């Protein structure tokens, strides 16, 4: 009977070692199976809007993006964020996974749960693969949403096109929620794909620029390109800020003041 117990122990050990956490997986493409937290963005927005002041007040946010499956760099990035004092919240510019499969969302969640600041994410094109868009919505909430904080409006805009088999982003919604409103100090737009990327048709690019300009958007924030960019594009009067990926090992800090936005890059 001794040998039987040995084999039993090996199996039991394997089960314990793997933590029994992800060990029952019905499919890499599963969605809504209850192992993930729900509506993270919505919860963060509620929390931030309660902490927000009614009038403008200077504040500082951190911007990261395109963590994909660069888990080691991403863990260091979360640690580096925790080491920074006084960030009001963190924005992740999308592509939180590589293939949009369930386990990648679990890994992302596991790493991000160490972050001491509130975080908002926008969906990336990779997060749309497999059933990723469904997992994303379960975990974070709506794909288009806004945050009003210290009298500034952040418009989070899903502009993924190809992965929806060529569907237009909801420009009408973007235009509506970004609408120039004298009572709001600054409007910033956050979307994963910058409008000059090849997912945009020439007209959609033109329309995106037009909406940014017409609504006097202060800064248009994106990811997707895997390399940092800050400044103007020839065709648009609104400045852009593009984050690199997790392997760039840097954090973008955005200081939002009454009359200006200050961009700072912090390596770790």
């Amino acid at each position: 009977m001794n040998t039987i117990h040995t084999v039993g122990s090996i199996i039991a050990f394997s089960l314990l070692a793997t933590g029994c956490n992800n060990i029952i997986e019905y499919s890499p493409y599963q969605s809504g199976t209850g192992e993930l937290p729900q509506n993270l963005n919505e919860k963060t927005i509620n929390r931030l809007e309660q902490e927000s002041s009614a009038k403008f007040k200077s504040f500082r946010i951190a911007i990261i993006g395109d963590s994909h499956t660069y888990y080691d760099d991403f863990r260091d990035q979360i640690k580096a964020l925790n080491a920074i004092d006084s960030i009001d919240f963190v924005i992740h510019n999308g592509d939180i996974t590589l293939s949009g499969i369930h386990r990648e969302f679990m890994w992302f969640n596991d790493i991000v749960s160490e972050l001491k600041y509130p975080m908002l994410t926008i969906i990336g094109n990779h997060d749309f693969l497999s059933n990723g868009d469904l997992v994303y919505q379960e975990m974070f909430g709506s794909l288009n949403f806004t945050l009003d904080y210290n009298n500034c409006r952040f418009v989070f805009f899903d502009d993924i096109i190809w992965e929806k088999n060529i569907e237009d982003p909801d420009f009408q919604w973007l235009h509506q929620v970004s609408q120039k409103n004298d009572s709001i100090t600054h409007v910033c737009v956050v979307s994963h794909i910058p409008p000059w990327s090849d997912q945009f048709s020439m007209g959609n690019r033109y329309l995106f620029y037009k909406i940014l300009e017409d609504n006097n958007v202060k800064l248009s924030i994106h990811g997707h390109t895997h390399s940092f960019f800050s400044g103007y594009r020839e065709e648009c009067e609104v400045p852009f800020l593009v984050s690199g990926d997790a392997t760039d090992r840097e954090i973008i800090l955005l200081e939002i003041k009454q009359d200006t936005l200050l961009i700072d890059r912090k390596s770790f």
Partner: protein
Amino acid sequence: MRWIITTIIFFIFWTPNLKAQFVPEGSYKMAGFLERMYEPRKTVISGDTLHYRPRWVFPRHIKVQYAGSVGFISVGAGYHLWDVYEPTLSYGLLNEALGGSNVTVHTISLKNSFFLTQKPWFDHFWPKAGLQINWGNTNNTFSSLPAHYPEKYYFQNKVHAAPFWGGEWYQPLKDKHLTGWGIYFEFSALDAYLLEAIRTDYVTMLDVWSLAVGFTFYFH
């Protein structure tokens, strides 16, 4: 979950220690339709006579499996070739009712299983290992990119290979259809997970396994 696993482990290690012989033949009277399949048939090709037995094409075994990244439940049938090789083709389903997923996933899987020993351990337990090929059908999975993408924009995400290891507790039966049955477990690791285990420190070799448990029924 834990109680299922515990039950299975208990079941595997405490069933009576009967003498086992893998896929014994003729130990019990076969059902008529099986016996008829063993009878030789003839067909004529180009004026020649070809002798064959229908049994050659009828599956050797069927499997019913829970989990293992190929659906909540999967069923399949297969053969036993060259003594050590057991291929099984299965269909797995995951949906709202079966597995509680808000999206339906159909998976076709080819389990290429190999016997690791010449005799079973403790007369009953056959260690096995092999490679599974899983073909998942759901939203936004593709084997070749839709035409509107530039070339190589994404890698295909429909077909995954998954090495696995495990074993089966085999029990012979005196039955006119079945020569025996078995209960098995398998740990499989999807290529995509293995890649992260190799590429990153964060994902370890212990994080990538997916457990399947199931029953096999062996026909005469």
